């Protein structure tokens, strides 16, 4: 199943800038990378109570964003899922394995690591972008086509 989505350059650019601002502010506040993987891992397996508390506050902020937007604009941002439950489960599991061993995801490597000009993050980002593109091509045009 494929859902056609409209091209939204301005909303996407504005969203990207906010993601960037949040990353810069986290570095200024705590001296840390805004990587969703690292923040979640540390939340699930905290080193100390203090370490857990800031992660919980950050995650709470993230998860209340759709509600705040709903109150401000009157509509919930779209989450359209064109894949089966099995693909969500297998995909989610692989994402968890991959980001652990790869040391980060789109936010950690793709935004913060690349912004630090880290060669490791360039390699990781290029690798997962290619792997994602190939996977989508295979799912949609080889298996499903």
């Amino acid at each position, binding site marked *: 199943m494929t859902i056609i989505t409209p091209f939204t350059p301005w909303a996407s650019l504005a969203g990207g800038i906010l*993601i960037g601002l949040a990353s810069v502010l986290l570095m200024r506040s*705590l001296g840390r990378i805004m990587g969703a993987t690292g923040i979640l891992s540390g939340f699930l397996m905290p080193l100390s109570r203090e370490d857990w508390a800031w992660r919980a506050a950050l995650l709470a902020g993230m998860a209340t964003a759709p509600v705040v937007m709903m109150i401000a604009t009157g509509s919930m941002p779209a989450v359209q899922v064109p894949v089966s439950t099995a693909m969500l489960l*297998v995909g989610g599991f692989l994402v968890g394995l991959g980001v652990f061993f790869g040391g*980060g995801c789109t936010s950690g490597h793709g935004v913060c690591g690349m912004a630090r000009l880290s060669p490791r993050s360039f390699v990781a980002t290029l690798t997962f972008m290619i792997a994602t593109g190939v996977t989508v091509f295979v799912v949609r045009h080889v298996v499903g086509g």
Partner: protein
Amino acid sequence: MSGLIRLITLYAIGLLFGIGIMLSGMANPAKVLNFFDVAGTWDPSLIFVMGGALITTLIGYRFVLPRSESAATPLFDKRFHLPTNRSIDAKLVGGATVFGIGWGLAGFCPGGALPALGTGVPAVYIFTAALIAGLLVARFLAHRPFMRQPSGRAA
């Protein structure tokens, strides 16, 4: 008191990140998968997300990253916690590949899914539960003798 200000600041940063993610379309698997489907229903929007986030962070980090070890400290911490692992190895490339395959199957990445939890859409919870399972299994595997080698926790 300063502890409370710290938590409120972090909540606000999380909120900013979450609004950015929701507004950008990164939390919408249909949009994410269409970005990668160049041969089909291509939607190039995510170039603007990555571009906007990267340029903003690139510029902002120039002002907030320390120039030398002892130059400055963050507002709410005694030191910066920057990743020190610089190795480009099979673990990095293999992990990134597996992540990419998962992202291509599900359409959610961790940074997209966490803010989307607030929408209440069941698929986000299914994905996040599987993501957590994957993280825990990976951590278990990493602590087995055959995998044991010096490395930090996931950044």
